[in-house]
């Protein structure tokens, strides 16, 4: 067991190394100094207290969506609709934060939960279609993502557009609903702590609760689940709901803790980052935390890389792509190791 974990971790590390190596080659070809650029990447992700906190902020939504994706993949559903759930979650969190009058603190909590509820409701549609009629979740995910995005556009540009804002965004939420910062000087909000807790709770849910047990059984072997009287349909539905809730929370943290309103297309693909994190973490919920840290470093560090070294941050996409490709072939490294051993 431990050996398996070690092997997984080693695979991920090798994948990351290869990714950076290929990135370095491309950088070199493009006429940059890779060492300098990677240096500025790390530096701007961890260079000082302040930027480190920024990196953690970037990590926040990815942990939520990563946990959501892990749940989906654990139950063997290929649902990639976190991006849409995130947007819908941001809408419901915003509505509660903007329309309701509640005491500070409580307001933030209720708005936050409302965000999760929004994502949950958005998960209900594909979840119900899948559980009741067997409608393929991949199709609904792809379509619902776009529907959610355009609907959020409608919210930001029409329904709740702030006429005073120069950018496409909604009204600000009430100050009572803002998720407070950990301390006034730092940009990091308590949402981060909640995200970490939510990720760990997802792990706990999967490995230490009845629901999680059933999810894993259904994901690994639906026939057994049927015989063991575990309802596959309701397990699927639960997964859709919990996962939707988590993805919705991702949107809520962004609205309540970062933007304080819904900004037009604020997500640069946090839903997809979550899927990537789940894949890098090999569906281990606890590994979501380092995986999303890694992605956050790429996202956050790439800004410093651009400002400091003038590299287009698409280079980060290239590196991310190569990392993923090399992470997909653990077999290759094992074979390679064996080959090296045999040669000696």
């Amino acid at each position: 067991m431990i050996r398996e974990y070690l092997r997984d971790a080693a695979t991920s590390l090798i994948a990351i190394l290869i990714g950076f190596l290929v990135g370095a080659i491309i950088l070199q070809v493009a006429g940059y100094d890779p060492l300098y650029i990677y240096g500025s990447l790390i530096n701007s992700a961890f260079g000082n207290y302040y930027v480190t906190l920024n990196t953690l902020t970037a990590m926040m939504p990815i942990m939520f969506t990563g946990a959501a994706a892990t749940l989906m993949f654990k139950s063997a559903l290929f649902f990639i609709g976190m991006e849409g759930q995130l947007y819908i979650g941001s809408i419901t969190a915003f509505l509660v934060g903007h329309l309701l009058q509640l005491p500070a603190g409580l307001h933030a909590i209720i708005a936050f939960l409302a965000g999760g509820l929004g994502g949950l409701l958005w998960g209900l549609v594909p979840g119900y279609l899948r559980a009741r009629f067997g409608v393929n979740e991949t199709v609904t995910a792809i379509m619902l993502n776009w529907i959610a995005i355009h609907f959020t556009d409608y919210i930001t540009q029409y329904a709740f557009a702030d006429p005073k804002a120069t950018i496409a965004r909604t009204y600000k939420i009430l100050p009572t609903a803002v998720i407070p910062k950990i301390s006034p000087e730092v940009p990091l909000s308590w949402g981060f702590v909640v995200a970490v807790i939510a990720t760990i709770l997802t792990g706990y849910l999967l490995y230490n609760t009845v629901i999680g047990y059933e999810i894993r059984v259904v994901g690994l072997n639906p026939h057994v689940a049927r015989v063991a009287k575990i309802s596959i349909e309701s397990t699927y539905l639960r997964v859709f709901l919990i996962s939707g809730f988590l993805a919705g929370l991702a949107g809520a943290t962004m609205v309540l803790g970062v933007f304080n309103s819904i900004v037009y297309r604020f997500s640069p693909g946090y839903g997809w980052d979550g899927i990537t994190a789940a894949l890098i973490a090999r569906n281990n919920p606890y590994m979501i935390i380092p995986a999303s840290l890694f992605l956050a470093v790429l996202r956050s560090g790439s800004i410093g890389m651009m400002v400091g070294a003038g590299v287009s941050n698409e280079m980060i996409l290239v590196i991310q792509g190569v990392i993923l490709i090399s992470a997909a072939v653990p077999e290759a490294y094992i074979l390679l190791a064996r080959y090296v051993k045999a040669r000696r």
Partner: protein
Amino acid sequence: MGEMVNIHKIYPDGTVALRGVNLDIYEGEMLGLLGENGAGKTTLMKILSGLLKPTRGVIRIKGKEVKFRSPKDALSYGIGMVHQHFTLVPQFTVLENIVLGSEPKVNKLMIDWSRAEEEVKELMKLTGFKVDLNAKVASLPVGMKQMAEILKVLYRNIRLLILDEPTSALTPIEVKSFFNVLRKLREGGVTIVFITHKIKEALEITDRIVVLRKGLVEGVISTTEATPQLLARMMVKVETKPIIKPEVSPSREVLVVEDLWVRGDDGRYVVKGASFCVREGEIYGILGVEGNGQKELVEAIIGLRRYDRGRVLVRSNSRLLAYVPPDRTTEGLVLEMPVCENSILGIHKMFTFGKLAINTRKVVVHANELVSKYSIATPNIRTPAKYLSGGNQQRLVIARELSKGSDLLIVVNPTRGLDIASTNYVRKLLVDLRSNGKAILLVTADVDEALEISDRLGVIYNGRITGEDLAMNFTEERLGLLMGGALRE
């Protein structure tokens, strides 16, 4: 015809299957390959048919050394194998399956379906098989699948036909005609290797018998010189003792099934008015060739399938039914999960704090208890179930089901694919349970098993119980007729 010299096979997981087997196959003979489960018969033949590569050893065909990289290479030497697990694509039609891989072509690209059909029909005439060529394989009963499988191999013009336990899915009557087909093939010049663990069959059909035991050749003997006792001694060292059943007078009816009508997946009735009852302190056996409605019948009883007519009455002390499914790897266990998590499958809701969180300590205690009580050989309870041997997996399933504490135990093919020791263990366990007052419904396709341990026996054919009697009252012939549908009592 061919010889295999000093064949070793070690699987990647470290299992040693063959430790230096030498085998000669003579042109035109019918060679029996006899041995218990795990003796290495199938592995040896998979190597000969190119599906597996030997760890060490040489294969010679007609004196020439050959290296098979794939079954295709073996086929090009005229060697074909009919596997025990069907190698048919379930979603394809029979004809598609038969021609797959050696399709007759019109031009370079198109398949000549009419020629294919003619050729296969020719083969069917030769063998006497009757299969609907345009039916989807998934919808066929087991016997039909077996025929399709054999037709598929014959279609490839093979000179050496390897059959792996070909009769396990056939009725006794079908076996008879199947043997005739084999004889006809041998007359036509086809060499046949017949893998079996049934001594009677080996004696009946083969010319020469090679007995394997634990990856080694135990002996080679001409069939005319062989006796059942001799072969049995070669196969197994431990003499099996018949199970002694203490007298119990069955009393209370725990399971009553009355006039049950159940539909299959395709919507047609497959259980057509089955009625029987299982009493405390007895094993009630339902014997039949697979595909006669057993699966649906059991599923209806345990509540996985709706039934249209009739009723199922369970008078058990527990709401949970103990059920040992026919296939432990796909229905009984989650192979990737550790033993301890498998030990609570289906009863996991009982191991909780409150209603939600699983009480890990309680699970560990429970798992350890099962492991020690039923002597399940496992490194520890955190080992994934896939690393357990088949026998231990089955013990785990049975142990878990018994821990449900139900009066009624439903077991389906409980010893399929198990070695002798595990088989004996399981059968003895079932008898003990019965003697202690449990009601056991045993659904099996194994005649010996049914006769050995059940008290009463019902034979199922085409969705109906066609004969019911005390197990000791059945003769083999009567059973054969009932199972084959030639008799209805």
